[in-house]
């Protein structure tokens, strides 16, 4: 049981922090309401009203976020490799280069098809 004590302590601290943050924010924070603040949360698009005729909504922010995730996931795999890159030798280097190349293919696709142009 003793080996789980740090886990329980950490859980208690994070729980206490969450409760503390929620309770302290309305007490100490300024209250300035505006239109954006009372809107429901959507990533970069206006939740209402719908575009005229049910047509297109801008997805610029969405494309940028997707591209970010591609590189984010790449870094998740690169980071542990970079810390101990010598343990796997040449095999690891070649595998990692292949991995980076395939991620780069996705990037090239987005770049060539205009995903990086904001307007």
């Amino acid at each position, binding site marked *: 049981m003793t*080996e789980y004590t740090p886990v329980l302590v950490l859980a208690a601290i994070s729980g206490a922090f969450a409760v503390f943050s929620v309770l302290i924010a309305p007490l100490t924070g300024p209250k300035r309401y505006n239109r954006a603040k009372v809107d429901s949360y959507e990533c970069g698009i206006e939740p209402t009203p719908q575009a005229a*005729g049910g*047509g*297109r909504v801008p997805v610029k922010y969405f494309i940028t976020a997707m591209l970010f995730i591609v590189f984010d996931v790449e870094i998740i795999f690169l980071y542990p490799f970079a810390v101990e890159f010598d*343990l*796997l*030798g040449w095999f*690891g280097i070649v595998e990692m280069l292949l991995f980076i190349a*395939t991620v780069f293919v996705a990037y090239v696709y987005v770049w*060539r098809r205009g995903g990086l142009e904001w307007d």
Partner: protein
Amino acid sequence: MSAVSVQAIVGAAPSPIEAPDVDYATISPLLIILGAAVLGVLVEAFVPRAYRFVTQIAVAVVGVVAAFVATVVVGAGLDTVDGEVTGRGGPTAMGSLSVDGPAVVTWAMLLFFGLLGVLLFAERRLDGGLSAFTSQASTPPGSADERHATRLRIEHSEVFPLAMFALGGMMFFASANDLLGMFVALEVLSLPLYLMCGLARRRRLLSQEAAMKYFLLGAFSSAFFLYGIAMVYGYAGSFGLAEISTAVSSQIGGQNLLLAGMALILVGLLFKVAAVPFHAWTPDVYQGAPTPVTAFMAAGTKAAAFVAMLRIFFVAFGGARWDWAPAVWAIAIITMLFGAIASIAQTDVKRMLAYSSIAHAGFLLVGMAGLTSGDGVTSVSAVLFYLVAYGAAAIGAFAVVTLVRDAGGETTHLGRWAGLGKESPVLAVAFTIFLLSFAGIPLTGGFISKWSVFAAAWDGGAWPLVVVGVVASALALFFYIRVVVLLFFAPPQGDGPTVAVPSPLTWSVVAITVAVTIVLGVLPGPLLDLVQQAGAFVR
């Protein structure tokens, strides 16, 4: 873990990790298909718009054919393994893939389905020079934006690399030898399919609704599968099927964890094969998806998921078969009966084929429940044969659906199909052959495949399932015959159905699938020998 041992680990000098020994020649079919998919993405990026569609077809066809040749070479070179049961080949890439007889046969089958699918995707003569896929899914149909896109010849050609990724995932799924690899494969095959379901040019909202439903229920079933994997890992301490099998037969630890894990994994896989009560997505998705995608999906997903299910439950959980077999029995019975009865009430051709697909999942489960191995018809060989015969007939039937059209695109209401026999006798005869194969009439592949799964089940003592299977077949036969009567003897409604004139692509798909269906019914020997020589799974 105490503080002392943590320090001991941190303080130790890191020893080099042994590089895995990967036999690239053995897994070359998989690498070729995934390579073709990546190449397809680059084609999208660099080839000018006018040549893109044709280039994509070429890349996909060359990739599939090359992978098929590689599969044949790999299959011919598999070593025979003598154990309790005869097998061929074995694990490779540090045990993460098992390239054995059933895996190679499934690869060849999936590549065959993939080639037929690509030929259907490439059809552009049916809709005035446009493919079945919308170029801009967000433009309202018939709007000025869409006419503009059509005039500029903006076409959707990403469907080919997406299909290649899905095909690669299916091949990986059928040969993965550990649960983690299986989960990755499941996602690689599912994600492109979710997307492809929403790409229809005609009836776009129905198609997008289908994609959404498929995605939500598919993600739900993936979560079940993953939770089951976590529990089985907790029980066995490993993801490898061989290690899990050892743990199961030595009965270590609490059995409750194993039972819960097996149940969750079974639920996740039964979602994918569309067995009752996890079938609810099937009719909506099969109806809404573009028909070429439905054809590819109906044949490919079912084949990959069934082989993966057999591999997990025969290899890893073989020692606990008396715990899971009753569940498979129950699900097989309700799936066969529900699929047969529900298809009677359908008025839409695509929904009718979807319910028929559900019923066929039940028949395949009968083969699995037989649990027979050794000489003669085994459960694995019966299921493999069934998957080839069913897949070919399903792709053919959906190919026929793409050809019966009116002004609004495909006309799928069954009433509008009345009198097809007068309008296009060739097409009506082809559809009849597929229906008779679904029903299991002699001289079609469906008869031999039903006979082989029933034989496997009978030998394994699952005779109640065989009795229910025969009853369900008789029920379904009534419905299929009714459709055949409708095609040939019912008076046409109004002007009757119009049959579009396709390019040789769709015609060759119909011709090939008719030929396969009849050859498997008249001369099943070569394929039966092949699936029996493939032997058992090797872990």
